[in-house]
């Protein structure tokens, strides 16, 4: 490996770079270490969350009903925190460093501070996991007052958020210095623009989270009061916008995977950038869909935000939903796969895990996750769907089938190119997106259907056995609960395959990647 140094304009220190033999990008070694540590920590969080997912799935399957009530709610909280917060954000922070440094051939600004950010996030994550397993924080990921957790839960949450804010600021500083030091020509690439969108949304998201969580932290120590309605408003200012961060990051990865697998170029790059910009402007208003049942908020605000405003954010998604498959189709047709309507699709590189992950992610997000979200955001329908398993079906399709699967596909490029280790278990790699994707399709459709038939969310016993006034549970709902359990088992298998590949690859001998295709690298 040839190390090159480049002088930094202001501090006068030197940054160490290496040149990637496959992509010819200049990789800042300090950034590389941070990408690796953030990614590995993300996968640890995913493993914990996935273990809890298995146990929860086997509890919601009425015939198995594995966990006791206390442990169900406890592990549900842990599952939510590990998956939605820790896995996502650690991976995204790694992605930010990757986008700002590797894709722009730039040096990481403030590498020491980046390690401070990492430690803050790690300490926060460990604190939260510990206090949940200790049994002092059975409050779910949303932690609504007047449910009160131990103060260390809120403190861990806040420390994690502070670390993430710091990482976002370092990303922005790196982008600015990359421009000043002229490390790249022209505009930042579209994928980096997507990550920038994610970063901007993340900053106002985390600020809203601070406004929600700091008074709640003080309340848990006995200082001051927290109004539950006010908490919900500020919490969901954090909560949904955080999902848009995941969405922007996922779409940036979709464009990247399309380029990596078939050499696709965006059909109209300006339009794609405009679509990212729509997210920044409108998603926080769209977050009102979490508050449609809240009594303290006016109807006019609810309907404006979840119709006019939210649909503009959805317009952004529709632009990307067209742009990416169109770019893949153009690229494959240019390669000569021109026969009929579907010749390009049939001759696409389905064997490549990145392509399979991209397609499954696009399908699950585009056909199951996205539309159910738009539907559930409408006021009248929300009255029927609120707190049912339809909500859970929706967000598992978006975050698990969409974002997580895209991140998994991207990991298969990161390991040979950034970790510089060949992939372990190439047979597992080839089939993992299929197993995970098919499991999730079954699970999310079953969840949505069960919820439509009345299955509540965040509920230990949805058959309501042992209640005084009997509940009329439809047999079809029970069948859907079984399918959800089966889908969960298949999906967890896909998750285990991914973790086995990642952990196994860490122990493979280090060597430079030989090709872009991860199965040949």
């Amino acid at each position: 490996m040839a190390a090159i140094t480049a002088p930094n304009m202001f501090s006068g220190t030197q940054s160490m770079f290496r040149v990637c033999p496959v992509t010819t990008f200049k990789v800042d070694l300090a950034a590389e270490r941070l990408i690796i540590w953030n990614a590995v920590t993300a996968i640890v969080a995913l493993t914990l969350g996935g273990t809890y997912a298995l146990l929860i799935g086997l509890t919601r399957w009425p015939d198995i009903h594995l966990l006791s009530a206390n442990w169900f709610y406890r592990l549900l909280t842990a599952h939510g925190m590990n998956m939605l917060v820790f896995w996502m954000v650690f991976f995204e922070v790694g992605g930010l460093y990757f986008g700002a440094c590797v894709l722009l051939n730039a040096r990481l600004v403030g590498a020491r501070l980046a390690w401070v950010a990492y430690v803050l996030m790690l300490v926060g994550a460990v604190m939260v996991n510990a206090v949940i397993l200790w049994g002092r924080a059975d409050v779910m990921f949303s932690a609504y007052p007047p449910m009160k957790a131990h103060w260390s839960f809120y403190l861990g949450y806040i420390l994690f958020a502070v670390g993430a804010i710091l990482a976002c600021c370092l990303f922005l500083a790196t982008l600015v210095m990359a421009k000043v030091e002229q490390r790249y020509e022209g505009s930042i690439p579209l994928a980096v623009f997507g990550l920038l969108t994610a970063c901007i949304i993340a900053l106002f998201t985390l600020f809203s989270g601070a406004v929600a969580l700091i008074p709640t932290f003080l309340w848990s120590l006995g200082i001051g009061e927290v109004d539950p309605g006010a908490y919900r408003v500020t919490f969901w200012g954090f909560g949904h916008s955080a999902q848009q961060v995941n969405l922007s990051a996922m779409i940036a990865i979709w464009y990247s995977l399309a380029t990596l697998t078939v050499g696709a170029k965006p059909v109209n790059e300006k339009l794609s950038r405009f679509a990212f910009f729509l997210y920044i402007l409108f998603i926080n208003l769209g977050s009102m869909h979490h508050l449609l049942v809240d009594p303290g908020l006016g109807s006019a605000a609810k309907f404006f935000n979840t119709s006019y405003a939210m649909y503009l954010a959805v317009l952004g998604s529709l632009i990307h939903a067209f742009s990416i498959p169109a770019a893949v189709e153009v690229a494959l047709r240019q390669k000569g796969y021109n026969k009929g309507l579907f010749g390009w699709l049939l001759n696409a590189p389905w064997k490549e895990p990145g392509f399979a992950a991209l397609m499954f992610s696009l399908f699950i997000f585009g056909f199951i996750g996205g539309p159910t979200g738009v539907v559930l955001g409408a006021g009248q329908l929300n009255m029927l769907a609120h707190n049912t398993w339809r909500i859970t079906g929706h967000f598992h399709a978006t975050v698990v089938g969409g974002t997580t699967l895209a991140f998994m596909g991207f990991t298969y490029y990161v390991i040979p190119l950034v970790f510089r280790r060949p992939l372990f278990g190439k047979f597992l790699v080839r089939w993992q997106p299929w197993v995970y994707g098919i499991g999730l399709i079954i699970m999310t459709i079953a969840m949505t259907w069960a919820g439509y038939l009345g299955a509540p969310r965040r509920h230990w016993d949805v058959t309501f056995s042992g209640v005084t006034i009997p509940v009329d549970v439809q047999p079809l709902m029970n069948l859907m609960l079984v399918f959800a359990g089966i889908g969960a088992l298949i999906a967890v298998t896909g998750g285990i395959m991914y973790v086995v590949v990642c952990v196994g690859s860490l122990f493979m001998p280090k060597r430079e990647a030989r090709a872009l295709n991860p199965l040949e690298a």
Partner: protein
Amino acid sequence: MEKKHSGPEAPGTTVLVFLLLIWIGFLWFGSWITLAQAWGLR
């Protein structure tokens, strides 16, 4: 200047699928409203 998309390199299938989805959505929505009115649903 960007090359205009036409001929076999145009993303015809994606365009068709999108138009089809929009058409189906329009049909479904329109028929739902019509039936809802016929059944006297408000």
